[in-house]
């Protein structure tokens, strides 16, 4: 197990380096000059642009910039944002909370609801409920998240006026303590619903198929033959075995939490990482973009390893050598 993990970690480091180099080159080769953008459209002067370029080392050759960057990253320094002139890590930290809140909440809701409904459907295959659930799952699976978000705003905020359109807190009546958390929760409802709805089908489908697979396994048939209570079979044996693939999907979703919600964040003006990243693209903030990519790749790699371990714990049949 130890060696296996070591190997995995090595692969993860390789991946991260690859991702960073790839992005470094894509970003720097692309047209667009941050100094030019910062100097403004209406009245830029060559001197201002040159000053900005020198200040951020953009006048150096590409490979020099790359080496400098890696040296700093190894020391744990993600560099300074060109646009904000603040440490990249600070900028990311400020947005991480909102994104994690939104994505974790929706991933957990989707995980729980999706697997429960999936398991339910599996035990009632062919029934009307099963058919209806499957249809809804397909429908949601095919829906662009941003479109669903727009429709939900239209219905619940604009027409019914029961939920706020956007943002994270009610700025008219700022609150503290428990009321503040309630306020955030209130604002979280629509974006989290949107994100969970589009994620539910993934859990639903995988649970449904794995549960129905397990239910056909020989040992279940044996238990049945021995007259064991159907519900007990399900609770004690089928569900536990069927949940494994679902965990993988959960891991995959979590791996992309950092930016996965960008489109939804934009629709709901949710102050998260995805928006920070879009802004960084538009303003050509190279260090910030690289920093976000690093964090993202790191979280993907770590989650993958955690999922592997979890798998081993949950399923004693898997042995790593």
């Amino acid at each position: 197990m130890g060696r296996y993990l070591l190997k995995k970690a090595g692969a993860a480091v390789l991946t991260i380096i690859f991702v960073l180099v790839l992005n470094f080159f894509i970003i720097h080769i692309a047209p667009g000059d941050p100094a030019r953008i910062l100097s403004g459209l209406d009245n830029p002067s060559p001197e201002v642009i040159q000053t900005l370029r020198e200040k951020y080392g953009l006048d150096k050759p590409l490979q020099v910039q790359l080496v400098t960057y890696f040296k700093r990253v190894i020391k744990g320094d993600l560099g300074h944002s060109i646009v904000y002139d603040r440490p990249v890590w600070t900028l990311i930290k400020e947005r991480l909370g909102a994104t994690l809140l939104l994505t974790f909440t929706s991933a957990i809701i989707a995980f729980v609801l999706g697997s429960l409904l999936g398991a339910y459907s599996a035990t009632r295959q062919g029934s009307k409920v099963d058919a209806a659930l499957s249809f809804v799952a397909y429908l949601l699976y095919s829906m662009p998240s941003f479109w669903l978000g727009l429709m939900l705003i239209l219905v619940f905020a604009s027409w019914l006026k029961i939920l706020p359109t956007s943002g994270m807190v009610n700025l008219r009546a700022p609150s503290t303590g428990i009321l503040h958390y309630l306020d955030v929760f209130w604002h979280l409802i629509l974006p989290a619903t949107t994100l969970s709805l589009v994620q539910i089908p993934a859990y639903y489908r995988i649970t449904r198929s794995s549960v129905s697979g397990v239910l056909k396994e020989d040992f279940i048939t044996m238990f049945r033959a021995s007259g064991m209570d159907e519900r007990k079979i399900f609770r004690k044996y089928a569900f536990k075995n069927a949940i494994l693939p679902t965990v993988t999907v959960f891991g995959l979703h979590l791996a992309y939490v950092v930016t996965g919600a960008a489109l939804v964040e934009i629709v709901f003006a949710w102050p998260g990482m995805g928006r920070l990243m879009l802004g960084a693209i538009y303003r050509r903030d190279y260090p910030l973009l690289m920093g976000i990519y690093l964090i993202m790749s790191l979280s993907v790699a770590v989650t993958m390893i955690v999922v592997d371990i979890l798998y081993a714990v949950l399923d004693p049949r898997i042995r790593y050598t």
Partner: protein
Amino acid sequence: MRKYVSIFVALVVAASMLAGCAQNSTPRPKEGGTLIVSHQDDPISFNPDWKTDDYAYPINQNIFNKLVTLDPRYNIVPDLATKWEVSPDGKTYTFYLAKNVKWHDGTKFTSQDVKWTFDTIIQKKGTAYNNLQAVESIECPDDYTVVFKLKQPYSAFLGFLAWYGTFVMPKHVYEGTDWTTNPANQKPIGTGPFKFVEWVKGDHVTLEKNPDYFKGAPHLDKVVFRIIPDANTALQAFLNNEVDVAGVRPPLSEVGKLEKTDGVKVIKFAAPSRYYIAFNMRKAPWNNLDVRKAIALAVNRQEIVDKALKGLGQAAKGFYTPAIAWAYNDKDVLPERNLQEANRLLDAAGLKPNAEGIRLKIDLPYFQGSEWADMATVIKANLKEVGIDVNLQQLEIAAWMQKVLTDHDFDITILNGFQGPDPDNLRLRVGSNGNLQMMGYSNAEVDKLLDEASQLTKVEERAPKYKDVQRILSQELPIVPLAEVTSIYVFKSYVHGMPVEDGIGKVTFSDYSLVWLDKK
């Protein structure tokens, strides 16, 4: 950038229309309350003079002051300087400062702050650097007087001081530090009507009343700028009463409906900003006047106003904004639409249509945003009628700048821009060395006229020179003006004392010191 431009819109024209509004039956202002303004995106920082930052500008107007500023109708009005004098030779500007001004941390404001601010902008090449190149020295004869000495007369100087990147910053906070990383960039200290409270990144910026404001304490307790990047979501939030003032301009298509909505006030006026086509005259066929003329004849400017701008704007006629009336030449104007003549000119230029009726395939890069996309779509449809196939290239602003301004890799492009505060602005758009002159256009006579005009002090003497420039432009057509921009302000009708209504001659575009709320 569009935002930047639209903030600076001015309204010299509508003066007479609005003049009477302020006085009639103004009720007594109510004190207190929180004003919520929708806001497009996070500021870069609260150093107001360092970088071009459209997302900080409206907020900074409430935290900082300038020497002189521009009111919503584009008049130069006093700010920290209560009055000023210009020497007869036009080379010395003397500003007399208000005496009861304190920084938000309690320190006294003096002329040294002003000197430090402008010295630093020039030395560190802040945003306004380009407009301050005429400055030779800045002197402080006493705590309340500042004297700017110029190398040569520069009639646009005062206008540029009132414009962008010229907020006076606290010397005692910044002196001896790196102004790009000073902690005050996160927690600004100004002299303005509101003090900074907090900035929750990506969500909101909160300001509170400055009871010691030198022009009198504001009525509101708080102003909150709520960040909503999506224009449609911002509109929904406004309609849903989550926002009082639409700081994010609603989509143009919704303005008509908003005007008919109860409890919503919409104020519109012509701005000294305009949309235009720029040709890449470095390459064929755009180096041929006849081809440029054909485009001018083929584009339907009224259709652009009707469909792309949803009727909010005016089809362009001349070659400078009519909003700055004294410099506008109404004689040398664009030709009327004439497809037959356009076709004839294109034929004459040797651009014969092929079997599918296509004479030419061209690239039109433009930057993101629905009005730009719509405008480009209309132009594409118009030019198709004369056999020109337009390939639209939608780019985000950074890529557009690179492609058009730096690499000159385009056929025609569209842009808009603020034409003030002074017609000297023409220099950067059509002057040979203008920073926004992407056409590759160079006319010695235009350059000479612009130079001469900028060094004259009297409007009567300057006007003929600018009108001459417009005449030359109308003959040579390096650009084709399309439409005049309309400024649009949208807010709830319980919001009183908005700069655009009651602030004319007093405060700048987004200064909320006079605002008060009339609701329970």
